[in-house]
């Protein structure tokens, strides 16, 4: 019997130390707006989860700690665990519960109807489930193909070898949008350039991301990019080989100041602020928000420590402006194919 207790105790310790919960539990005070968010990786990943964490921190800064509180459950890559956390937050009476991961959708469609008084938000997606008569879910997404296109154009101007490498996780969501936009940007500038794309089928395997980048460098790639939280592995290899790097989701310049040219940075406050305002007014869902270059939810952040050719920077800014103005736009077909549409 002793052994059984020991094992149970061990598992309990382990279970407690696994998901790191921070933030204070909600108390029933009506003047404070409380947000809870569930993310698949840590809020310090310099990528997807951090972009959300930073946005909530910025909103708290702006609205004040007396008026806005948020709690975050990180590392919930396992969807079942995330679903339990979402329910828990709804039970605790949070005003807005955010499921920050496209993989959480199938859980949310079950959970949201059980808490008709709670507002939920789910991203990245455009689906608010209104067609399933669910009215308390907001959707948000990043049109990451826009920044991808801009970075692609600049990459094409910077490559000397004519080979560019892209490290992706799984071909879905904003990762696919970014990669497709990037490829289209390269082709827009120069159709001759070869773009090597490797979806490594993992969001977490840094070693595989590193070796994928290395394989591209061995194929003469001198400009690289990549998306999702395993890219620090790839950035390291790019730095070793002195290849250039373009980032997305968060500003990655601090990881390799010598080689990061520019990053597409997500600013989720652009989607979150209107959602919060509408929830405060009593509308609990039904609308989809998108980060774009036009609404500045997507920002092209140049690395100040990198001496970028002015001509390249001007070309990047020009293309970004063309997207803002609607002269260049993107259509995404039902099968996911991206087409670039140029206004006459």
């Amino acid at each position: 019997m002793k052994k059984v207790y020991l094992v149970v105790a061990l598992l309990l310790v382990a279970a407690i130390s696994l998901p790191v919960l921070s933030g204070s539990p909600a108390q029933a005070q009506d003047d404070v707006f409380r947000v809870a968010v569930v993310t698949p990786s840590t809020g310090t990943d310099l990528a997807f989860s951090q972009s959300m964490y930073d946005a909530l921190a910025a909103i708290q800064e702006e609205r004040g700690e007396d008026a806005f509180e948020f709690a975050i459950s990180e590392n919930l890559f396992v969807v079942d665990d995330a679903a339990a956390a979402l329910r828990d937050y709804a039970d605790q009476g949070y005003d807005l519960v955010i499921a920050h991961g496209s993989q959480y959708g199938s859980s949310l469609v079950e959970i949201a109807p059980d808490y008709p008084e709670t507002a939920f938000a789910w991203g990245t997606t455009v689906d608010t489930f209104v067609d399933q008569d669910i009215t308390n879910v907001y959707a948000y997404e990043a049109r990451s193909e826009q920044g991808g296109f801009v970075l692609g154009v600049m990459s094409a101007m910077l490559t000397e070898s004519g080979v560019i490498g892209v490290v992706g996780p799984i071909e879905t969501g904003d990762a696919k949008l970014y990669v497709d936009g990037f490829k289209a940007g390269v082709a827009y500038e120069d159709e001759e350039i070869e773009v090597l794309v490797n979806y490594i089928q993992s969001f977490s395997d840094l070693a595989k991301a590193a070796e994928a980048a290395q394989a591209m460098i061995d194929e003469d790639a001198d400009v690289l990019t990549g998306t999702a939280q395993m890219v620090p592995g790839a950035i390291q290899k790019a730095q070793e080989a002195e290849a250039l790097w373009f980032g997305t989701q968060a500003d990655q310049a601090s990881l390799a100041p010598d080689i990061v040219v520019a990053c597409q940075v997500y600013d989720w406050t652009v989607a979150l602020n209107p959602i919060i305002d509408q929830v405060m007014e009593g509308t609990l869902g039904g609308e989809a928000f998108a980060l774009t270059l036009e609404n500045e939810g997507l920002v092209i952040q140049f690395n100040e420590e990198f001496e970028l050719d002015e001509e390249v920077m001007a070309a990047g800014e020009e293309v970004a402006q063309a997207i803002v103005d609607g002269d260049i736009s993107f259509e995404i077909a039902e099968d996911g194919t991206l087409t670039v549409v140029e206004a006459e």
Partner: protein
Amino acid sequence: MIEDLLTASVIASGIRLAMPYLYAAIGETFGQRSGVLNLGVEGVMLLGAYSSFWGVYQLTPDKATSFDPMALAAGVLVAVLVGLLMGLATAFINVTLQAEQGISGIGIYLFGLGMSTLLFQKNFSQVVTVKGFPKIHFPVLSDIPLIGEIFFRQNLLVYGAFALIPLAWFVLHKTTFGLRLRAVGQNPEAADSMGISVTRVRYMAVIIGGVLASVAGASMSIGHLNVFQQNLTDGRGFIAVALVYFGSWRPYGVMYGALLFSLVTALQIKAVTIGIGIPSELLSMTPYLLTIIALIFASRRIDQPAALTRPFERGE
């Protein structure tokens, strides 16, 4: 097509990828040969990866443009110490308290995963990098075509991993300690009657396993990627346990398994990168499929230590 795929750089990549498997699986071989199965390798690897990274980060001067040998040595030392402690804890749980080894290992894994993530979040506000072990450039040798790239442009921890194989073989098969260790794993009662302390030998074996698992983690964070992130090892500790079975509990068998698995992974990465027309979703499965197939055909269960997972209780 095969000549496009099987290049020197792909083989070099496979060798780099094999490094953490070698440290972790050789360590696990010691434990299992003494009769203790430790499924917590992954957790110890994560703690080793974090602690060594932390050590190097703390000791490298600000704005350093190149690596600092003292900081790297200290990083490895921190990993060794953490491995020692985790090995001791594992031995206490499995040998002294005689816990169910399959389950206690999962507990150790979850502890390592949670603790390394927690410490990383508390001590680092975001992902940062360190200057890890550099590639060694040997005069003349490194410049030989093919062979130079494959064998003579790796870092110190890669060489350490391969040096460990003959060393482990020697210790297991040519020393008194190795003989006792194997005896304890085969027939602890007989070993005990010969005056060998089963508990002591198993403690030693499990601690060796802990230290090597921790160094395996360090080899990733400061020997390959120069960065730490939550769940950095991404399941490699579990693959290492499988490789011990694959290698029939023999150091050289483990090495062949680790090289096979890593080379196929490197080939798969190359195949997706240059685009050979097979979807990456399918290609990504090949290393695992191949390992399962090889396990079915190659594993000689007859070599399994007879007392594996069996706690020893001295009959009075």
